[in-house]
């Protein structure tokens, strides 16, 4: 950042100066590295992961389905989706499952203002998910592969997740993706439908985000 006029000390220099004075450190003084990251991937056999994921997410009010093949996922979407137009993100898995060619589905949107309008009025948003985390019942969506608004504005969110991408939990995710921000501007863990307990601690779903979330786990 540029030096302010009149040789005044910038806020940056002043704050860093105060911090160093407080710690007795010099500019650029090397740092002894912290202890190694604590990442312990639990042993959860692949066939138990699905069950755990389902239990966790359904305890939060989400719904989990299992689809042997991509085509089954397409059929499930038709059954699950609420009446009215749906918006599908540009994730390749949705095309592969034939979802983008279902009736009354808007997809392939690349212009933001249009995407916003569509998301704001759609009955349902359909996306892929980069990973799942069984221990917490979470989806991981990474912006490089997914729109941020499709899983956020419509009142219902349907996501397709490949079984092979269902991880045990946080430790496995951060082992696989040590620096998520390197690859995308946004990495979001979604754990259940939007909720609030701000009024008398009473649970209300769908406060700003979707009030319902359906995850279809695809084995193929």
């Amino acid at each position, binding site marked *: 950042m540029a030096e302010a006029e009149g040789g005044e000390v910038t806020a940056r220099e002043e704050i860093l100066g105060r911090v160093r004075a407080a*710690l007795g450190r010099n500019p650029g003084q090397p740092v002894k590295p912290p202890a190694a990251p604590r990442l312990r991937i639990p042993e959860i056999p692949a066939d138990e992961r699905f069950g755990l994921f389902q239990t966790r997410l359904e305890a939060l009010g989400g719904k989990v389905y299992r689809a042997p093949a991509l085509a089954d996922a397409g059929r499930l979407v038709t059954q699950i989706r609420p009446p009215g137009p749906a918006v599908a993100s540009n994730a390749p898995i949705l095309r592969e499952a034939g979802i983008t060619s279902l009736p009354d589905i808007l997809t392939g949107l690349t212009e933001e203002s249009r995407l916003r309008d569509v998301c704001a009025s759609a009955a349902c948003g359909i996306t892929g998910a980069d990973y799942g985390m069984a221990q917490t019942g979470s989806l991981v969506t990474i912006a490089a592969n997914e729109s941020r608004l499709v899983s956020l504005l419509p009142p219902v969110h349907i996501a397709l997740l490949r079984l092979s991408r269902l991880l045990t939990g946080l430790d496995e995710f951060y082992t696989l993706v040590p620096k998520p921000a390197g690859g995308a501007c*946004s990495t979001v863990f979604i754990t259940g439908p939007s909720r609030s307990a701000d009024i008398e601690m009473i649970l209300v779903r769908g406060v700003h985000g979707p009030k319902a979330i359906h995850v279809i786990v695809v084995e193929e």
Partner: protein
Amino acid sequence: MMMTRERLVQIQNAVADTKLQNAVYSATARLKEKRQEVVEELPEYQELRTHAAALKKHALENLDHYLEQFEANVIAHGGKVVWARDGDEAAGFILDIARQRGVKMVVKSKSMVTEEIHLNQRLEEHGIEAVETDLGEYIQQLAKEPPFHIIAPACHKTRQDIAEIFRKGLNTECGDEPEQQAGLARRVLREKFLEAGIGISGANFLVADSGALLIVENEGNARLCTTAPKIHIAVTGIEKIIPRAQDLAVFLKLLARSATGQLLTVYTSLLGGPRRPGDVDGPEEFYVVLMDNGRSRLLADKEKRESLNCIRCGACLNACPVYRKIGGHNYPWTYSGPIGAIITPQYKGVLQDPWLPFASSLCGACAEVCPVKIDIPKILLDLRRDVVAERTQASSNRLEKWAFQGYSWLMRHPRLYALAGRLGAIGAKLPFATRIGPAAKWGQVREVPMPASESFRAQWRKRKAAK
């Protein structure tokens, strides 16, 4: 210890308000129970706390290094870091951007740091509307009150109160059902999200090796604030730094569990810069305001530095018998509860509200639940000592000084001490001893225990003689 009359009356009113007491008691009890349940199910909980505390300690001891690393990484992703010495500079920056871009309305997701600097007020003074979007925070804004609790801003209100607030604030009909009230807020705020030129958020963590912010929330309002408007500005304190994204595996396991008893909050967003080429949405501009506002002064105090470990989970508030009685609006500053009691004197000076570190029985419940192991009772004791030291130095209270000198003299003269004890016991039995005179204030809210009929010294002598 010198509480203003006004404050005392306010506290007495809060304690006497059964509706308020019930609301706060049941909300904090719920949060406490839920935390307890999930913590008990996590065998590695204690180990995670130790790890988290060590990471925070390390990050704070090398804060300059990590701040510079964070800044370099934000820039590498196309964002900007703005350094602010205080609230004036932080608000000044936001006002400049708003003016340059012709923005008249900003949406905000919950942030204690912006509460700390009264950002909304500052923006509104310059004709910019700032809309809180967290449901509880929105209720508080309409009620024109600061948040009552770090994570449950409106937990002291009943749904009837809230219906009334919506009716008045939004000029519309509103029933008593939380579902309906939330729906109303959703509709009103949805429009604001899509219209606002700037979204303002806080940050739970600043990840140095990634140049990214981590934000946790349950409603989706923080995601909307940081996605829908063209500009995202995060306002945060310099102490929120952690070294690596991988360290989130530790902190995320503790934060939601301690705060609300969830395994993870509904949305946990890691945000590293503006939208990238090929992205269809997300903000075009991304700024992180790194504010000092007294934090570097706290950092210099080695003995109490760990106060900056706080991840604002609110668990210590729920555990605290004092907070649960007096409530969140009877602390002198933005931060209430045990954490407020230890940081307020450090930010504002110990003589500003000298009673604060003394308003605790040192029961230790706060330290027991703190996920980053801040030794709050010990810091309260340190602060008590600081209050006394600063007072003595200022000689502001000569009477007290004499009293202590007298006491010390008495202690050195055992016979006189014994006599004083007997006189004291007689004095305490006089019916008006704690209703009039210097002890009146103290006696107003306490039942005075009756002294034993015989002093300890006298009993001891007898026992020895009997042997």
